[in-house]
């Protein structure tokens, strides 16, 4: 599983950061940073939740 963020859509709402802080972080500069592009399977449920709850629908998952 690889986390893909469309940064043209992302507006740093930080919802993803609340759901999976292991993977997403919005820093003081208001930009989103991906801490781990290939999180382990144990985080799949949470990452999928972040994908669905992103207000801008800016996150997707690629397999592999």
């Amino acid at each position, binding site marked *: 599983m690889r986390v893909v963020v469309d940064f043209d859509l992302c507006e*740093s709402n*930080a*919802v993803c*950061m*609340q759901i999976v802080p292991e993977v997403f972080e919005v820093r003081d500069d*208001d930009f989103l940073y991906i801490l781990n592009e290939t999180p382990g399977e144990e985080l799949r449920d949470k990452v999928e939740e972040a994908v*669905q*709850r992103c*207000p801008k629908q800016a996150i997707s998952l690629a397999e592999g």
Partner: protein
Amino acid sequence: MQRIAIVGASLAGLRAAQELRRRGFTGNVRLIGADPELPYDRPPLSKQVLAGEWEPARAMLIDRKALRSDDIEISTGTAVTSLDLGGRRLSTEHESIDYDGLVIATGARPRRLPTATPAGVHELRTLADARSLVADLSDGPQTIVVVGAGFIGAEVAATCRSQGHRVTIVEVAPVPMERAVGAEMGAVMADLHRRHGVDVRLGVAVDQFVGDERVAGVELGDGSTLEADVVVVGIGVVPNTEWLEGSGLVLDNGVVCDATLLAAPGVVAAGDVARWPNLLFDETMRIEHWDNAGDQAAAAARRLLATGAEAQAFTPVPWFWSDQYDRKVQVAGRTNDADEVVVAHGAVDEGRFVALYRRGERLAGAFGMNRPRHVISSRALIAERGSFAEAIDRLTD
């Protein structure tokens, strides 16, 4: 449970269907919606779509292929007209649909003024509404009156002003967005619009529209008349529950559910239509925001699949965002019935700050302008029933 019917095919309905599949439900999932479109996202309608930056089609949440791959059967343009609760059966104009489990996600529709509305008076809820409004605004800068400064009104005003239109907001309350953010932050929003050149008329109602075939103006309760080429009315929504009258479900400004979102045996509700006691706040609420629609729908789907002992109360911290001009407004928790509202981080003048809402000793809500990270951390604290004092401490660090 073999057949689950979901009435309402917008965000909540779609997320309920997807959650059923995610949780391994292998029976029939049928999504039935009155809107002729496949499920689409509403937030862009008052922003990117209205601004002409997006083709309306870009707001679609899913296509038929993806629905098929999840084995979700969908009927669009199909209004469900009644529910036989005991017989577990729905009726549409053309057929009866038997179900074992039911998700009610029929949402809400715009409240309307009790006055005649000539052409050029719009509301903005559906993709069709957005297309019609965009078409009406395509003729260069125009004079626009926005009736109602709630969420939709404020966003429409900001988008239209940014497009170069002349915009007046008419709001009967003393400040914009009062219901969503309270009086203090509402006043901040009024300033924001005024600084961008919007004429903000507060504490005044609309009497009637001027113009027969096509709107030409708006007569206000204070005797004045505003010129208008286009009017957008956004004065709140009413939950779509008429089809449930007489069904035996309890209806009271929405479908009344228990704390786990169950409205009756085998029946759950989610999204704008659902009213439930949120135990985190000891408050019965009905939430009209995007994040709740999806989150609550997923919880409702899990509730439907749960046996009694597994059922969990749905206790979210509501959260919403609104983009107006270059400001990102985000609100977490509850802003109503606050004992105190304090700017705890940043400064209002700088357009980058967080205000906190206190109820008793507890942190009840947070309002952020261009401060997403801080709102999210406050949201987490609200979920932990954190104290107001600790919230202030964290933000002033």
